[in-house]
């Protein structure tokens, strides 16, 4: 049964008002809470018993699967190993996410180690939201690892969002992109108080005409700290782009370290990066439209993280 806190967390991380339709797997406090499979999407516990395997049949079109994780047990550090096999020519949306509710002084954490194998010409959209709530003083820790292997002609779009409450986050993203395949990663992170977030990305373009685009938007408030690393490596005629922007408020600290490595003469790679306060001309413009200072700041941040 879902209690009020569970419901709130599920709504935050997966936009769910209750139990979802279609295939799903809900994990609560380190245990399976509910699972449903569909004709095309199978979910089963892996051999080691420490995660799930999601298999999507080739040619599955317009289906989605929800796999939220919720945590509200003091002292629990949950680690799961999940594997996603997306069949050839399919087009699916996977909605993941982790919500932590901390009500005590003990820390709580979740590490989701995800591996994606996207079949030839398949399309996958992966949406992952991380949130933490509760009045407790214990640390809320989320350390996700995402490995993506794209076969020829495959397309994956990953939206990774962490908009508040998480004290410590160490993210690792890895990708290997074969001929004609594309990977788009958009990461949005907002930190406040003394929170720390780190994101390490290792992407390799191995096939001809492969594409990778990684976009990072950071808002660093209070005394928080964010580090963003990317290694984008080209081993064929391909296209790669990195875009990282950080807005610093208060006394936040931000580092962005993008690296482009071309090991092929026809590799085309670009990056743009910026770190700074909210631009004064943006504030002036919105204030001249009738917003006060705080409203203007909010609108700019909202748009930036949209």
């Amino acid at each position, binding site marked *: 049964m879902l209690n009020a806190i569970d419901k709130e967390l599920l709504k935050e991380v997966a936009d769910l008002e209750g139990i979802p339709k279609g295939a799903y797997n809900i994990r609560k406090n380190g245990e399976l809470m509910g699972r449903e499979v569909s004709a095309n999407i199978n979910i089963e516990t892996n051999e080691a018993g420490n995660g799930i395997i999601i298999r999507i049949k080739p040619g599955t079109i317009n289906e989605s699967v929800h796999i939220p994780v919720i945590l509200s047990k003091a002292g629990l550090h949950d680690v799961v190993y999940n594997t996603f096999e997306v069949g050839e020519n399919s087009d699916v949306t996977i909605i993941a996410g982790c919500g932590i509710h901390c009500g005590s002084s003990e820390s709580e954490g979740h590490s989701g180690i995800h591996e994606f194998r996207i079949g030839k010409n398949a399309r996958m959209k992966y949406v992952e939201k991380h949130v933490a709530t509760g009045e407790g003083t214990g640390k809320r820790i989320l350390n996700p690892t995402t490995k993506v292997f794209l076969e020829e002609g495959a397309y994956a779009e990953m939206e990774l969002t962490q908009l508040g409450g998480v004290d410590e986050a160490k993210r690792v993203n890895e990708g290997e992109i074969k001929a004609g395949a594309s990977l788009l990663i958009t990461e949005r992170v907002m930190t406040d108080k003394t929170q720390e977030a780190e994101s390490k990305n290792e992407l390799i373009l191995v096939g001809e005409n492969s594409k990778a685009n990684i976009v990072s938007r950071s808002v660093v408030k209070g005394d928080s700290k964010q580090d963003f690393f990317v290694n984008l490596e080209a081993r064929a005629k391909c296209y790669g782009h990195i875009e990282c922007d950080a807005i610093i408020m208060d006394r936040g600290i931000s580092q962005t370290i993008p690296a482009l490595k071309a090991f092929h003469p026809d590799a085309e790679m670009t990056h743009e990066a910026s770190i700074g306060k909210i631009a004064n001309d943006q504030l002036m413009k919105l204030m001249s439209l*009738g917003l006060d200072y705080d409203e203007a700041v909010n609108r700019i941040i909202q748009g930036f993280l949209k």
Partner: protein
Amino acid sequence: MIELKNVSFVVPDEESTNGGEPKEIIKDLSFTFEEGKFYGITGPNGGGKTTLAKLIMGINPVTSGRIFFRGEDITGLSITERARKGIAYGFQHSARFKGTTFRDLLSIAAGTDDEGELIKIIARLGICSIDFLDNPVNSRLSGGEIKKIELATIIARNPKVAIYDEPDTGIDLWTIGPMVELLKREKEAFKTTTMVVSHNKAFLEAADDVILIRGGQIAYEGDLSGAKPILEDLSVCGFANVCEGESYAECYR
């Protein structure tokens, strides 16, 4: 409508030898802008035109003097408060945003996100495409597009006073005519007191009143024909800054 009483604006002169000698940009300037009139504000570069416009919007605070709007002293009011009273300002260099669309800005300006209302506003500007609303207001927009957006956000506010700082910056010659017509139409329809800071003849010809600012003061006020001899006498050369130097390269301008 807008009354300036002995307005001065002083900044520390960064170029002065002792590093902080005060420099007067606007000097004891008094003027009354009348309701529903179209003013063309012109004059040499560095004369104080833009500074004057920014003082009225509250972007720069006056050093001394008072500003009145419909008889009310607004000298101490913020940009936001002045905007809410009905003063609008079009920036010469429009702000670019990441993740903010034209629709977002227009909704803020109009105070509604009702698509029907937004379409009515863009129709006034001659923008026919609804898709244009979802353009991000970022650095990928052309000079003409960003200018249309800037204009739209001002018109959307139905302001009592509309100030445009060099609205022809970054647009092509053929767009200026329709822009002048638009400002005139808006002025007629809503009795908008319109102030345009510009060097462009098209705006000055459309103005009911031309104000020439030089050395932080009003050097002339009246119709354009009267201003012409003074403007020619100033022989405003936009390249004056780069021309100054020791060796002479035969300027053919």
